[in-house]
């Protein structure tokens, strides 16, 4: 509690430094406010019961959406003709778009069109440096609302005044983005990462570079919609609704290990997942998993799936195993089998491949140094693709921005990433320094989100960046679970980006 009072007081002093003279009085006020907190009597059984009731409700039930329309159909004799109509009409649409829908589309805009980026630090520079993910927020100032220049491919974010992003707030989690939150009980040993650059000096010759902002690509679904809106289902006449648009389409395969296919026509997004009712049979004895699937097998299965379902993956590079799954390094022996400390029961039943996105031959990475792109999950038990997600139409606006050209500035950013841990100094906590050596970087694009203060939207950006490989494998008893560290080259974007730094205990 004391820590929280101190933080609240410091915030007050930041606003009005003269208040520090009244610390005793203010401390009493804040303490009293804390004492006022009522016992809310939150009842977990209530929460569970409500969740159960909600799970029985159809999504979007207050409106007769296309999605709920399909979800509520139970009579096969109704479903079959409707599904046939849908598929019949949909096929020519899909065929028209087959070669181009997921292809790259870029619209040039004027330099600096997305406004200026700024980091609004909430913490002192020391605490910002010590934070795992940084304590600042990147915002866009003076940026116009997100728009697309093409009529059918534009998206207009015209609802104002609501900010975006869930922020932090998980008390007790390691991904604590704000130093003022209550931290979990500290471990006995924490590892402090320090970065050391051991590569060659790099000439940063480009003074400007393109920042990409993704825009939604709407699909013309009018052909699909037309026969449906004249359809009388018996319990509702769809033709009585006016100006009806098609937002999403949901279909499922009514067979064992069938899929659920969901398309979002406003976003230009496709999601394929398992039709769970046909993947999990209650009471069925599952085959035990004795070894993890090899990458080669996973890639073969995933590629076959893409080919069979004619999903255009030309914009994506060769798949890589997602490396943020702990089992990969912790639970499995080097041979890929089980060990005494990792019984087979712990093995996950799926493995995820990332097909990295490339824009004009430049690979895209996320802030954790992981390749960013289409994700395909392969079910190990059934040796079958279960999910395809993060598959969007790659439509962007791009705008030219000044880049960092001083190598010393880049090195300073790396030094700033050194993590002195956000646990306070204490005799009970032993700190060990782990030096991470970084090699010569390459140019990439960083996928990140930036909040636009003008219209309250979150913007999905690809920003020029340098990616530094971790060249020295740290001591075997520790994990630094990123192979790369990414440093953005656009001023104002930096500390708030997930750096992939993490703290591990043994």
């Amino acid at each position, binding site marked *: 509690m004391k820590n929280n009072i101190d933080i609240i007081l410091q915030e007050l002093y930041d606003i009005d430094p003269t208040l520090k003279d009244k610390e005793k009085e203010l401390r009493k006020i804040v303490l009293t406010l804390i004492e006022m907190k009522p016992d809310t009597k*939150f009842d977990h059984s209530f929460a569970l019961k409500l969740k159960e009731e*909600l799970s029985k409700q159809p999504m979007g039930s207050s409106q007769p959406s296309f999605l709920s329309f399909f979800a509520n159909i139970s009579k096969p004799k109704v479903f079959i003709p409707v599904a046939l109509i849908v598929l019949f009409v949909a096929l020519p649409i899909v065929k028209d778009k087959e070669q181009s829908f997921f292809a790259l589309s870029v619209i040039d805009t004027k330099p600096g069109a997305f406004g200026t980026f700024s980091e609004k630090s909430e913490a002192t520079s020391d605490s910002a440096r010590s934070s795992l993910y940084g304590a600042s927020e990147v915002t866009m100032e003076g940026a116009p609302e997100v728009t697309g220049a093409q009529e059918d491919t534009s998206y207009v974010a015209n609802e104002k005044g609501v900010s975006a*992003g869930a922020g932090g707030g998980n008390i007790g989690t390691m991904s604590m983005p704000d130093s*003022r939150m209550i931290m979990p009980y500290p471990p006995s040993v924490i590892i402090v990462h320090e970065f050391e650059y051991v590569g060659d000096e790099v000439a940063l010759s480009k003074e400007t570079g393109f920042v990409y902002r993704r825009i939604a690509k709407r699909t013309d679904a009018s052909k699909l919609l037309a026969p449906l809106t004249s359809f009388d289902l018996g319990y509702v006449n769809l033709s009585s609704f006016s100006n009806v648009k098609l937002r999403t389409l*949901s279909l499922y395969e009514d067979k064992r290990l069938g899929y659920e296919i969901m398309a979002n026509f406003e976003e230009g997004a496709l999601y394929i997942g398992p039709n769970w009712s046909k993947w999990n049979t209650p009471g069925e004895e599952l085959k035990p998993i004795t070894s993890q699937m090899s990458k080669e097998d996973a890639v073969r299965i995933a590629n076959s799936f893409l080919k069979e379902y004619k999903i255009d993956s030309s914009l994506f590079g060769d798949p890589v195993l997602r490396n943020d799954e702990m089992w990969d390094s912790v639970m499995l022996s080097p041979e890929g089998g089980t060990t005494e400390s990792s019984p087979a029961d712990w093995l996950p039943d799926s493995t995820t491949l990332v097909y990295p996105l490339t824009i004009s031959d430049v690979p895209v990475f996320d802030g954790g140094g992981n390749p960013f792109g289409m994700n395909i999950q392969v079910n190990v038990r059934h040796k079958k693709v279960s999910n395809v997600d993060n598959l969007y139409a790659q439509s962007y606006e791009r705008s030219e921005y000044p880049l960092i050209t001083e190598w010393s500035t880049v090195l300073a950013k790396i030094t700033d990433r050194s993590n002195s841990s956000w646990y306070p100094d204490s005799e009970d906590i032993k700190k060990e320094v782990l030096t991470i050596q970084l090699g010569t970087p390459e140019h990439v694009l960083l996928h990140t*989100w930036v909040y636009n203060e003008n219209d309250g939207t979150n913007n999905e950006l690809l920003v020029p960046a340098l990616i530094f490989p971790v060249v020295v494998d740290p001591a075997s008893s520790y994990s630094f679970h990123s192979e790369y560290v990414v440093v953005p080259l656009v001023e104002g974007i930096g500390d708030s980006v997930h750096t992939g730094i993490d703290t591990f205990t043994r």
Partner: protein
Amino acid sequence: MDDKDEKKLIEKIRMGDHSAFGMFYDHYVSRIYNFIYYKTHHKETAEDITSQTFYQALANIAQLDTNRSFSPWLYQIARNLVTDHYRKQSHRNHSDIEDVWDTSVADAGITIELDTDVKLTFEALKKHLDGLAPHEREVVMLRVWDELPYKEIAKIVGKSEGACKMSFSRSVALLRDALPMASYVVLLLKL
């Protein structure tokens, strides 16, 4: 839950994925319940409005713009439902009642249900805290009681971080005069 995860979840929810909505539910249910409780001080009412909040969210999630964040939208639903709750109870249909702190015996016909164990504390404090505007009280509760950072509070109340900080500072200044007696009462009641 970071912005990227949230956007993915919203997308899946919009596409009808119940499990994705379940993840949001798990993340927010206690927060929303507490938020409502702070505004009602009545367990059954808070549970009822929490249920309504999530039913409404589920029913309207398809309308949520994926570029917008889930939390401010959800909190706004909860806030509106609390306001509706008190307006429905008031024969005068007061438009200025936003939560239990705005109600008073002068509101003829309104029935204020409070949990018994908080009734005395609430009444003692109400005359001090209801000097604050509803949005100021909200910032105080979220910062002090829920210990949320301003970054998140700003999203919930739909204002900038700076405005939230200023609001909190003003509230503390107002409470400097009002609180000594209140604190005495509270501490006595807690003994």
